[in-house]
């Protein structure tokens, strides 16, 4: 987006606030009541510095705050999605210390000192990651909600050297589900990526 555009999320949030509606975060464990106000500190809260996409963020969170909620609610990095919130769907897939994991089953307070990469951090210097380019070229999405998780998982899968066959790709992407059924194109995108990478 250009600097003159406003994201839909911000627009709706601003309109709702102006109209007197509360935009409830609705998330248990989010420490910040409103953006910009200091967190209501309870004795159990934990100070943690999260390194996300190469930047460090000092946060104060409840122990029960998941990494997913910290990324979305505290850091406003909403590319990582909450699907099932129980480790089944993979929409929350991020990389921690180079490994793909489910952020919904990770406590933010336990992530001190770990390198976290989210979908926002895949593209470097404005250049799409090869996985992202492959997903675009192969139309590997429909509604797009599972897509950040699919891309994070696919990027890791290729790094892990798992993309040796169609069956292997399906098996090693089994932690990411897609209600729209974009699987054939997701498979094609990963095959494209693996093909170009494996010859290197």
């Amino acid at each position: 987006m250009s600097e003159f555009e406003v994201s839909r999320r911000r627009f709706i949030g601003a309109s709702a606030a102006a109209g007197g509606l509360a935009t409830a975060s609705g998330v248990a464990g989010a420490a910040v009541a409103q953006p910009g106000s200091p967190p209501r500190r309870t004795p159990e809260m934990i100070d943690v510095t999260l390194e996300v996409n190469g930047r460090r963020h000092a946060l104060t969170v409840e122990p029960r705050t998941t990494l997913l909620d910290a990324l979305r609610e505290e850091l406003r990095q909403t590319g990582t999605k909450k699907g099932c919130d129980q480790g089944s769907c993979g929409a929350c897939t991020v990389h921690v210390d180079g490994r793909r994991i489910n952020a919904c089953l990770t406590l933010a307070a336990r992530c001190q000192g770990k390198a976290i990469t989210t979908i926002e951090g895949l593209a470097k210097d404005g250049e799409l990651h090869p996985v992202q380019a492959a997903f675009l070229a192969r139309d590997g999405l429909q509604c797009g909600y599972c897509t950040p998780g699919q891309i994070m998982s696919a990027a890791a899968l290729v790094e892990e050297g798992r993309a040796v066959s169609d069956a292997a790709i399906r098996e090693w992407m089994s932690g990411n589900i897609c209600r729209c059924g974009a699987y054939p194109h997701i498979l094609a995108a990963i095959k494209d990526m693996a093909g170009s990478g494996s010859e290197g």
Partner: protein
Amino acid sequence: MENFTLAMPATIEAALAAAQQADAKFIAGGTDLLQLMKDNVERPQRLVDLEGLPLDTFSMGADGARIGTLVRMSDLADDPTLRRHYPVIAEALLASASPQVRNMATIGGNLLQRTRCGYFRDVGFPACNKRQPGSGCGAILGLNRLHAVLGGSDYCVATHASDLAVALAALDATIEVQGGNGTRAVPINEFYVLPANTPQRETVAGIGGGRRRGRGRPDPQGAGRDGRGRHQAVAAGRRRGGAGRHDSDPGGADERGSARRRGRPAAQ
């Protein structure tokens, strides 16, 4: 999920001490525990973080394999030595969960995971003898396609979800349980307890549901293997008294214990 305090002990001894506190549970990978906590099946007041403790190595010796409790499922499944000597363990691990979960989940946690019975995991459903002893069992006359045909009882037909446990049982693994009273080796086929009329108890080390008033909950986790064909597991955990018998609530101070001794049948 409800809030809790998080302890991050630096040593196994400190972890054991921290787990002595009331309503404390160990957390390793957290992939099962956090699900249970989000569903309010488990509501510990205190979590004791096991990450970083020296329980995360796998080694092969003349006697066989020794697997540390905190070894990640994915790491063990990928280990070439493990795959060469015990391919069934790798197969069982790779049949489990998802790549993301396997990157987080530990061997010990996998062995100590709770059943995936839908009645157990739904606190809105009143009848579950495992969650609430004496309340009945919804599965016996309900949706039980994935439940036990062998080993169940009139009180509970829940199955254990771990494929790894099956592979280790076939290999006659030994689980090394470490608690406040020391360490003992338990053959895996003696480690798990059939439900009988106490389905809230699942292992000889005391893992299980139900709330113990005023007492910490024993929660051993971890597995390591040693010995040719006989594997030893290292688990950090609390061990209540009564070696050689089930660690039931002593003294009858717990109303559920009294109900069991009166032989009250499970409500249907």
